[in-house]
C-alpha cells in the first residue's frame, strides 16, 4: 500500500478527511449567509438576483461549487463509514447504565444530526438550486445590465409565504447549529490544533459561530414570511 492510501485509510486519516471537508463546509456557510442576507434588501430582489446570476456563471465560483458538492458527499459518506466502524468497535453488548454528560449531547450524536442535515440539504437543493439551474424561472431585466437574469427571488419569496417551509427552515438551522457546536472545535482538534492559549478562543468562536450563523439564516425566512 502506498503511504497515501495507508494514511487515508488510517483512523486519523479518515478523521482528517472529516475535519478538512468540515472546515470547507463551515466556511461555505458564512459565504452562503452573506449572499442570502441580500434577500432582506428592500429592492424587490434585484441585488439577490444579480448575485444569484453571478454565482451560477462565474467560472471560479463554478469550480468552487464542484469542490463544495464533492465535500458534502465526502463528508457524508466518510461520516457514515466512520459511524459504522465505531459502532462495530463498541462490540455487541452495551452498558446497562449510561452516563452521558450534558456537554456530550452534540458530540455523541453527530452522525444522526448529520443525516438529518443531509436530508435537509437534498430538499433545500431541490427547492432552490435545482430550480435555478433547470426549473422554469421567469427572467427579469435590470438597468445597467446587458442580459436578463432569472428571478430566483420570487421563488424564494413565494416559498416563504408558506408557514410550513418557514418552520422547516428554522428547525433545520437549529440542527445545523447543534452540528457546528461540536464540529467547529472538533475539526481543529483532529488536525492537531490544540493549544493552551488558543483552544479556549477556538471553542468560544465555535460556540458563537454555531449560534449566530444558523440564527441569521433562520431570520431570513421569518422576516420574509412576516413581510409577505
Amino acid at each position, binding site marked *: 500500500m502506498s503511504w497515501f492510501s495507508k494514511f487515508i485509510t488510517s483512523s486519523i486519516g479518515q478523521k482528517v478527511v472529516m475535519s478538512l471537508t468540515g472546515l470547507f463546509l463551515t466556511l461555505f456557510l458564512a459565504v452562503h449567509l452573506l449572499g442570502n442576507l441580500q434577500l432582506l434588501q428592500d429592492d424587490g430582489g434585484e441585488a439577490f438576483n444579480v448575485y444569484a446570476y453571478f454565482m451560477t456563471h462565474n467560472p471560479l465560483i463554478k469550480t468552487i461549487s464542484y469542490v463544495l458538492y464533492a465535500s458534502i458527499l465526502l463528508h457524508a459518506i466518510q461520516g457514515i463509514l466512520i459511524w459504522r*466502524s*465505531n459502532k*462495530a*468497535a*463498541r462490540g*455487541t453488548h452495551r452498558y446497562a*447504565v449510561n452516563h452521558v454528560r450534558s456537554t456530550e449531547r452534540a458530540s455523541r450524536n453527530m452522525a444522526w444530526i448529520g443525516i438529518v442535515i443531509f436530508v435537509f440539504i437534498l430538499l433545500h437543493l431541490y427547492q432552490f438550486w435545482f430550480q435555478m439551474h433547470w426549473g422554469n424561472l421567469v427572467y427579469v431585466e435590470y438597468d445597467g445590465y446587458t442580459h436578463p437574469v432569472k428571478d430566483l427571488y420570487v421563488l424564494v419569496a413565494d416559498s416563504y409565504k408558506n408557514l410550513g417551509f418557514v418552520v422547516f427552515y428554522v428547525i433545520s438551522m437549529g440542527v445545523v447549529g447543534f452540528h457546528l457546536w*461540536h464540529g467547529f472545535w472538533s475539526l481543529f482538534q483532529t488536525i*492537531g490544533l490544540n493549544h493552551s492559549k488558543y483552544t479556549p478562543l477556538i471553542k468560544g468562536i465555535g460556540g458563537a459561530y454555531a449560534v449566530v450563523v444558523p440564527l441569521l439564516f433562520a431570520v431570513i425566512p421569518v422576516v420574509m414570511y412576516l413581510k409577505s
Partner: protein
Amino acid sequence: MKLTLKIWRQGGKYNGEFVTYKLDNVNEHMSFLEMLDVLNEQLIEKREEPVAFEHDCREGICGSCSMVIDGRAHGPMQGTTTCQVHMRHYKEGDTIVIEPFRAKAFPVIRDLVVDRSAFDRIIQSGGYISVNTGQAQDANAIPIEKDQASRAFDAAACIGCGACVAACPNASAMLFTSAKVSHLALLPQGEVERKRRVLAMVAQMDAEGFGKCSNVTACEAECPKEISVSNIARLNREYLAATLAGELT
C-alpha cells in the same frame, strides 16, 4: 449499610447476564474492592462461584481494577480508580450496577475481567526507546526544561487501565495511545524513534479494532489519571508530521 448489587456474570454457569446480590453490613470505611471481597467470601461460603474481578496494587497506580460502576468507568469519583472508591460515597439502600468494560477489542474473559492485551500490543509496536545496555547513564546527563518534563510526566501518568476505551462511545483507544506517544515525543530520549513510533502505534491501534476519535472527551472525564485530550491533538500532529513530512522508507 445494606446494598443491592447488580453484577454482570459471564462464564461458568452464567451465559452473560446480570445477577442481583443483597449485601448487609457494608462498612463505610471499606474500599469498593473490599466490599466485593466480602460478597465473594459470602458466595464461597454458600459454595457459589465468586465474582471474578481484576485487582493488584489497590493503591490506584496499577490500573487493574477495571469495571464500570453505574455507567462510569472506575466509579463515580473524579480522577479515581475503583480501588480508591470508598463505600462512604454510597448510602443505605443504594443499588449499584457493576459491568465489565465494553469494547470489541476488550473481550470479556469472565464476569468483570476483560482481556486488555490489545494495549500491550500497542506498546510493543512502538511505545519504547532503544538504548545501549551497559552502565546506567547519569540521570541528569540530558538537560530537559522543567515544564517540558512536567508535560511528559503528565502523559506518562497513564496507567493503561483502559477506562478511556470503556468511556468512549466509539471504544476508541486514542487517549491511551496519545498519552504513550506524547510521553516519549516530548523527551529527547524519544526523538530517535519518534516518527516510526507514532506510525506503528496508530497502525496497531487500528488493527486491534478500536474505534475512531470523535472528540467527545468522555475519556478525559473518566480517566483516573486525568490525562488531557490535548495529548490526542498531539498524537494527530505527530501522525500528520510523520506521514506527510516523513521520507519514504
